[in-house]
């Protein structure tokens, strides 16, 4: 049976809308599509390719670090490898991973809309990402960049002989793609919500996209101008950060981190949203403290703009600035902690089942908490001075970025895969991959905390013999992690071919995206739904949660979808 044959099956008396996948088969119908669902799939393909490239660079680095002396690659190659890994993973995987891929697919469905507000702009975002990616890949093929993903001046602007201009232009162009996505989502959430979907009825995933869009539109231009200044300094010798002419290289760091710290929240906020959807569904529970969750996300989005100085504790900025940035960095842990507490509260008393998405989500909570708590270590100035530029920092941000965001991406991908493709994947393979990923991840990155604490600096291709045991452990973990990442493409790919039809709502989840067919028709809904209930109505107020499938106990069924739960 082909995908579109069974998709869009209607109820008696309804015409059968065709699935978005069946709306055209030519290359042109994909490359010129304005359908948010197809653009999401274009993004999915793109970020998968970039993830493989960035992951290969990481694999090479871990191989190099198995032995203390630099044997596999030269120091210069190693510099180019970690730069490539950082640039690709940050801007071409993590930033678009959840918003532009899952967000693009789910957002209009979740708010009962036919599409995002500006469908053509949405397509343009993808082309900008591709154009930026091509520039970065071109710099890679020509010989790479050796500045690190942070492009610190004056090395990047005055000294580096690598392809900094090309790579910086790539990130610059890609940044406009991300700005366009942010604008699109903000306007969509403001103008496209269906009838009855008030602000406090929005699913938390939508709120997380709202918060992340605010950060995207307000932070990304700062990155753009910082990189533009580096590029014009290289091309036209304007000397904007040149110390020989009285310029200040630290100024670049200020502008760069004014973007790049909020960018951390660009990379984690959408994960918060995904996890809230998955946890409630597989615990059959209402979210604990809905409004606190909403305001915590908005608080993170706003506070995130006032902590950038904690990246510069050792750059020689004033003592008082350090104190204030340290205090604010501690303060931003409060809303993050609210979220973790509320997720735990959501699980309490729920009927928890351990589907693959749920395993990822539970893993996320643990890994994000570890990453967040070590964030408090480095928010404190004396400890940060000790561990700056060591593997402790590397481990810390990988716990947030990989343990947090990549895990959340996989949680969301598994959660919405049946909606995206109309097929169910092999649950046992998926659980295996989730467990492997958790084990492999900790195996890889926990030793790096210890290495950093012992004083091993980051970004070196060789190290003293004392550090070898932990480095070998980390590299072994990376092998497990790599295997775990290669599994999902296999069984998800197989599900397209052999997977059982998913039905409209395989997880018996709330949320408007589950009221339409899987895969959804081009126009998303035959009739636009009307919402008359709060989100996550898995059980009536003050009533115990019930096992999945026991739909008769649902608080209120979605009014557009009478009795489709069985």
């Amino acid at each position, binding site marked *: 049976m082909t995908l579109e044959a069974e998709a869009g099956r209607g109820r008696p008396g309804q015409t059968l809308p065709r699935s978005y996948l069946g709306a055209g088969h030519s290359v042109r119908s994909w490359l010129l599509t304005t359908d948010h669902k197809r653009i999401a799939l274009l993004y999915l393909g793109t970020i998968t390719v970039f993830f493989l490239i960035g992951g290969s660079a990481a694999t090479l680095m871990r191989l190099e670090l198995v032995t203390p002396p630099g044997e596999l690659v030269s120091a210069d190659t190693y510099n180019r490898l970690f730069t490539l890994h950082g640039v690709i993973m940050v801007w071409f995987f993590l930033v678009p991973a959840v918003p532009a891929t899952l967000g693009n697919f789910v957002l209009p469905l979740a708010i009962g809309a036919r599409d995002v507000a500006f469908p053509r702009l949405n397509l343009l975002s993808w082309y900008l990402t591709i154009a930026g990616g091509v520039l970065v890949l071109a710099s890679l093929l020509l010989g790479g960049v050796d500045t690190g993903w942070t492009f610190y001046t004056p090395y990047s602007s005055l000294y580096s002989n690598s392809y900094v201009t090309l790579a910086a232009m790539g990130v610059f162009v890609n940044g406009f793609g991300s700005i366009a996505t942010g604008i699109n989502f903000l306007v969509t959430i403001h103008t496209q919500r269906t009838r009855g979907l008030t602000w406090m009825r929005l699913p938390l995933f939508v709120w997380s996209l709202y918060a992340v869009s605010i950060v995207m539109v307000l932070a990304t231009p*700062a990155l753009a101008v910082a990189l533009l200044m580096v590029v014009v300094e290289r091309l036209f010798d304007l*000397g904007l950060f040149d110390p020989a002419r009285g310029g200040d290289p630290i100024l670049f760091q*200020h502008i760069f981190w004014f973007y790049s710290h909020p960018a951390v929240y660009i990379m984690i906020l959408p994960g918060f949203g995904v996890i809230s959807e998955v946890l409630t569904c597989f615990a059959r529970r209402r979210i604990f403290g809905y409004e606190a969750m909403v305001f915590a996300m908005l608080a993170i989005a706003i506070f995130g703009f006032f902590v950038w100085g904690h990246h510069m504790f050792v750059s020689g900025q004033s003592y008082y600035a350090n104190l204030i940035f340290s205090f604010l960095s501690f303060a931003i842990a409060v809303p993050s902690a609210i979220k973790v507490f509320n997720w735990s509260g959501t699980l309490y008393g729920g009927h928890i089942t351990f589907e693959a998405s749920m395993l990822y989500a539970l893993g996320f909570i643990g890994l994000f908490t570890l990453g967040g708590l070590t964030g408090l270590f480095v928010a404190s100035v004396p400890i940060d001075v000790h561990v700056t530029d060591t593997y402790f920092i590397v481990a810390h941000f990988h716990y947030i970025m990989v343990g947090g965001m990549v895990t959340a991406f996989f949680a969301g991908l598994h959660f919405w895969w049946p909606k995206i493709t109309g097929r169910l994947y092999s649950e046992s393979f998926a659980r295996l991959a989730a467990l492997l990923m958790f084990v492999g991840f900790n195996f890889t990155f926990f030793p790096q905390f210890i290495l950093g604490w012992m004083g091993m600096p980051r970004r070196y291709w060789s190290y003293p013999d004392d550090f070898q045991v932990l480095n070998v452990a980390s590299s072994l973990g990376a092998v497990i992690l790599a295997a775990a990442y290669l599994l999902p493409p296999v069984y998800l790919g197989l599900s397209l071919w052999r997977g059982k039809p998913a039905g409209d709502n395989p997880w018996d989840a709330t949320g408007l995206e589950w009221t339409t067919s899987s895969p959804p028709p081009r126009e998303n809904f035959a009739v636009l739904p009307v919402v008359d209930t709060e989100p996550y109505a898995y059980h009536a107020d003050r009533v115990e949660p019930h096992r999945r499938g026991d739909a008769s106990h649902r608080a209120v069924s979605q009014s557009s979808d009478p009795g489709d739960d069985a």
Partner: protein
Amino acid sequence: MTRGLHEPFATLPRQREAATFGIWIFLATEMIFFGGLFLGYAVYRHEYPAGFAAAGARTDIVIGTANTMLLLTSSATMAAAVWSGRAGLRGNTLLALVLTALLGTGFLVLKAVEYRNDIDEGLVPGSPAFPLSEPGAELFFGYYWAMTGLHTVHLVIGVGALGLTAWRLWRGRLAWRGTGFLHVLGLYWHFVDVIWIFLFPLLYLMGR
């Protein structure tokens, strides 16, 4: 179906509202984009007041003032275009758009002349003929080129968009009645103008 109404909107007013909201957010991002340069300028001006004053006195006040007048006038004609569009006056809209584009082009021509004079005088950072020795003077001109350059790029995009709009309106290919198109274009144009209003005192009135 109403002309100019796009998916996923059901009504033109809603679509107008969304377009206006979108362009305002975009302009906010543009403000931060330019903000990085303004920040750099502010930091260095604070650090090298004498160098900035000496360098600011070397910019071409005559061309700068003329250009300010051109741009301010163009904002008036742009506003006229938006309002005639709202009133449904096709001819007036077309005329005002063309006038705005011409004024913008005039700015670009004068700016090109000015750039040429600057280069002849060696007012380029790193140039062996750079005439000023005060510390910070080169930084001033670094920012002068970066800021006016970025502004000029925005203006070129604006003039291009105006030309295209005027041409499509003339050929009857533009759905302008009731859509937010002219309003959005107008807001962008005014934004480019506003940036110049800040650049003019910072770069031309400085040190005089």
